[in-house]
């Protein structure tokens, strides 16, 4: 691979404290290096912004859920096709793009790493088949543990060390990256058509509470020293007044903080950040949640920004999806997964005129603007729940420009406009902060040392946007910012140019990250005995056929950790 010199760009590298300095970036063998030889190819980035490649921490792009949604919504695809080119395969888009289109559309925005945040362990082989097919971006997936029978039984018996050994075995078996919890205990209650609303409700037939499940898994996350925090979607999704459950859930992780690293990441907080007692009375819980995040160091969040467009709700939270289906009355899909988790999909449309939708839109932006430290909040739309990931540039324009926000605030539901705090907030993100919440902070949160920055030895994943930070005022020219972030001037993946002027010019294969915690043999032996004795009772597949071999991942990248158990 030829050496490359990116000359004279304005570099934004928050991890290394570089804010818009004019400098060169040298690339050799896919890595950032000190300098390159004279015959290195030169890429002139003068007058342009140079950032690390985007890192998306939470986007439903692959797996059985995403594919059922694709299969169920041909009307969503036929409006947004991608014609094949010399370099790019054909596909379809809008809310749930096909795999090739997903990779190309992320690369066009300068994104080079994306994580699928919810995969049922039993069907993770399917998730990896799709991740293998997604071009260009590096990727990984979070297996679901919050309603797993083995987990709940270990929590009930208080056998935390065996639980840690089980989670370690599962991460290696499924080639997963981090612990994901969705509506802990609630999806098990959905087996009988019910749900759990609060942290201290009891899971039927298992006699444990969501609080106990969350605490145990936070402790396991610390014991296994996993790179990422516990990624959680609390109980009571979309219920009025659920902001309190979110705060209580955050409290569970208080004493599992690790030096310099949070214990918990609460995702798409907009869906669980509501005050009020009824649908007509939804209020913003953003101030309370932002205050908690600002005053504690063991938790990070992402807003799950909502866009006023047609979307596809998709989550493992089966009961919540059925509740929303009864309101939306559109198409509903549900798929419970034996002894592990569930899935729910509903097609929907967000309207400015709708009171609750307008409040959701406002709550998400309030969260992003009220959380002071950009290292604690990450840009997501919980694709495709809040909106398609292709709308990130529009969200960026709302964050950098109060004027852009106010224009839309004037068009939303009047009652919502009155009850939101958003109109009174005039904070505007700088490009430096945007670089933090879209790449530096997310890479750090995921524990990916070679991602999200341009320091020596980092992967040469680089995005170059046609914005001159010395001349452009993002607050006023937010349209230019939006267009620049939508069509990167250049995107480089491990040193190779894959996108030029917003078009894919080369397709490369990305790697799949997964974690391999090392657990002491004797604990593992006792756990394996439990597993072997109950596996055939709990599952309809044989234990020997459950694990996924490493060769199954076309480009595997394991991260080993030394467990304290």
């Amino acid at each position, binding site marked *: 691979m030829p050496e490359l010199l990116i000359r004279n760009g304005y570099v934004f590298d928050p991890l290394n404290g570089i804010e818009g300095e004019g400098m060169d970036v040298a690339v050799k063998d896919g890595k950032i290096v000190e300098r390159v030889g004279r015959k290195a190819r030169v890429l002139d980035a003068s007058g342009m912004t140079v950032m690390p490649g985007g890192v998306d921490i939470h986007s439903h792009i692959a797996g059985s859920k995403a594919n059922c949604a694709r299969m169920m919504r041909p009307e969503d695809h036929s409006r947004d096709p991608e014609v*094949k080119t010399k370099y790019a395969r054909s596909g379809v888009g809008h809310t749930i793009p*096909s795999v090739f289109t997903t990779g190309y559309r992320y690369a066009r925005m300068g994104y080079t790493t994306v994580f699928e945040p919810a995969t049922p362990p039993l069907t993770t082989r*399917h998730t990896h088949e*799709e991740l293998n097919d997604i071009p260009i971006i590096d990727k990984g997936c979070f297996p679901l543990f919050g309603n797993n029978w083995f987990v709940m039984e270990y929590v009930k018996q208080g056998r935390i060390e065996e639980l840690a050994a089980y989670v370690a075995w599962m991460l290696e078996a499924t080639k997963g990256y981090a612990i994901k919890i969705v509506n802990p205990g609630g999806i098990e209650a959905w087996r009988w058509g019910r749900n759990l609303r609060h942290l201290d409700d009891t899971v039927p037939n298992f006699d444990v509470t969501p609080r106990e499940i969350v605490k145990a898994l936070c402790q396991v996350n610390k014991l296994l020293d996993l790179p990422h925090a516990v990624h959680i979607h609390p109980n009571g999704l979309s219920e009025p007044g659920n902001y309190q459950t979110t705060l209580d859930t955050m409290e569970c992780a208080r004493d599992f903080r690790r030096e310099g690293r949070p214990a918990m990441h609460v995702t798409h907080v907009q869906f669980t950040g509501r005050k009020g007692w009824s649908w007509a009375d939804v209020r913003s819980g953003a101030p309370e949640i932002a205050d908690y995040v600002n005053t504690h160091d063991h938790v990070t969040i992402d807003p799950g920004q909502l866009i006023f467009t047609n979307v596809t709700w998709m989550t493992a939270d089966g009961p919540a999806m059925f509740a929303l289906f009864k309101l939306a009355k559109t198409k509903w899909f549900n798929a419970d*997964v*034996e002894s592990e988790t569930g899935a729910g999909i509903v097609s929907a449309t967000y309207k400015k005129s709708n009171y609750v939708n307008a409040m959701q839109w406002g709550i998400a932006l309030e969260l992003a603007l009220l959380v002071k430290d950009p290292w604690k909040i990450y840009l997501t739309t919980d694709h495709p729940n809040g909106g398609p990931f292709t709308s990130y540039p529009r969200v960026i324009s709302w964050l950098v420009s109060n004027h852009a926000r106010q224009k839309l605030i004037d068009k939303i539901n009047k009652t919502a406009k009155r009850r939101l705090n958003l109109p009174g907030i005039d904070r505007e993100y700088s490009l430096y902060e945007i670089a933090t919440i879209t790449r530096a902070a997310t890479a750090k949160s995921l524990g990916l040392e070679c991602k999200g920055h341009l320091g020596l030895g980092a992967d040469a994943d680089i995005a170059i946007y046609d914005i001159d930070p010395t001349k452009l005022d993002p607050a006023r020219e937010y349209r230019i910012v939006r267009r620049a972030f939508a069509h990167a001037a250049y995107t480089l993946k491990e040193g190779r140019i894959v996108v030029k002027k917003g078009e894919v010019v080369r397709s490369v294969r990305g790697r799949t990250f997964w974690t391999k915690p090392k657990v002491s043999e004797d604990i593992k032996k006792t756990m394996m005995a439990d597993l072997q004795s109950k596996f055939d009772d709990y599952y309809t597949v044989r234990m020997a056929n459950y694990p996924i071999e490493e060769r199954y991942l076309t480009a595997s990248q394991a991260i080993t950790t030394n467990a304290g158990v």
Partner: protein
Amino acid sequence: MPKATLQDVLCTFCASGCDNLEITYDGRIIDSARNGCAISVSRFTTSDKSRLLKPLVRKAGKLRPTTFARAVDRAARILNNAKYPLLYGWSQTSCEAISKGIELTELVGGLIDNTTTSCHGPTILGVQDAGEATSTLGEIRHSADLVIYWGCNPVHSHPRHTNRFTVFSKGRFRKTRKDRKLIVVDVRQTDTAKLADRFIQVQPNGDYELLTALRTAINGEQIEQETIAGVPVETVEEIADMMMECEFGALFFGLGLTMTAGKHRNTEAALALVKDLNFVTKFVIVPMRGWFNVAGANEVSTWQTGYPYAVDLSQGYPRFNPGDTSAIDAITRGEVDAALVVASDPVSHFPREAVKHLLKIPIIVLEPKRTPTSEAAEVVIPSAILGVEAAGTIYRIDGVALEAKKVIDPPIGVRPDVETLDTIIRRVKKLGARR
């Protein structure tokens, strides 16, 4: 080579995905296949005389042995010159091969369809209108206290279904047969119906009316007719009550709904019935998919093109509209001018009028054994049998991905489909795809 045994092998017959077979083999000969149903044994006998061992190309009207390279070249030229080629089959080959098939279809600008189009295609069309409330098969084993088989006969089609997943299985909350009630709805008293607590005989082509009546009863509305599709209205009310009073119901349906008049609207009515039931209790619905990787064909096609089957890539992007872009329709209208058939036998199974047109165009066949389709082909390339002589990913009825294992080596010179297709793709690229 001493006799060897392989444990936990996946069966390659139906989509139940039994993965606890024990195969003993000696070199290239399989001795026995235990733990599966009676049919699984036949899937592991590979040495019968109808096995294709050499590539064949038609010269002067007769199929003559040829080299792999020459057969691939001929196949590549046929597909590359065609204006509207059909690539059909896919349900008995691996997901990796299907992925190559889609790449080849996009390259030559053709139509890719799988056997879903004459099996559970209407089920997917129903889901596209009504959504679906389903679960993996283990949930049903653990929790279902009411099981309904509608228009399907698992005792013959999915022999171990009842004792691995439903009434005879041992679940966490349902231990024995008496913890479950079984209803069978069919046009005749099948051997499955003989196991049922209640057997409902419905008139042929009357399923839609009966499903609609059940929905009406569940929605608490008055049914004004005395009998619906030959079933007395009192029985309809009774069955509706049974469905509403169970704790966890599971409705399995088969080709009795998808192949009779109404097709995708029959399945839509069944999906809507189960959706309505979720307002009063917990209910799931699962189609009885046929071939062991027909679900995989839908999954791969969906994640790569956005559509589960009948995908037209002739204009450089995916289009989907069964009735227009589905295999049997396109062939019958004489639109297709070349065909690649992988692991399927349309000359036997397609309606006569469609076969008449199919026999007029050059056919390329990738198949382990001789079939009427391979007999009528221009080019025949033998394939290694997935799950016996080649490994690959497959998808079970409920979308759980499993891995078919390679037990023995294929006959010399016989390759897995994924390799053959990859070679054809490279050859077409060398020929210079025009578009």
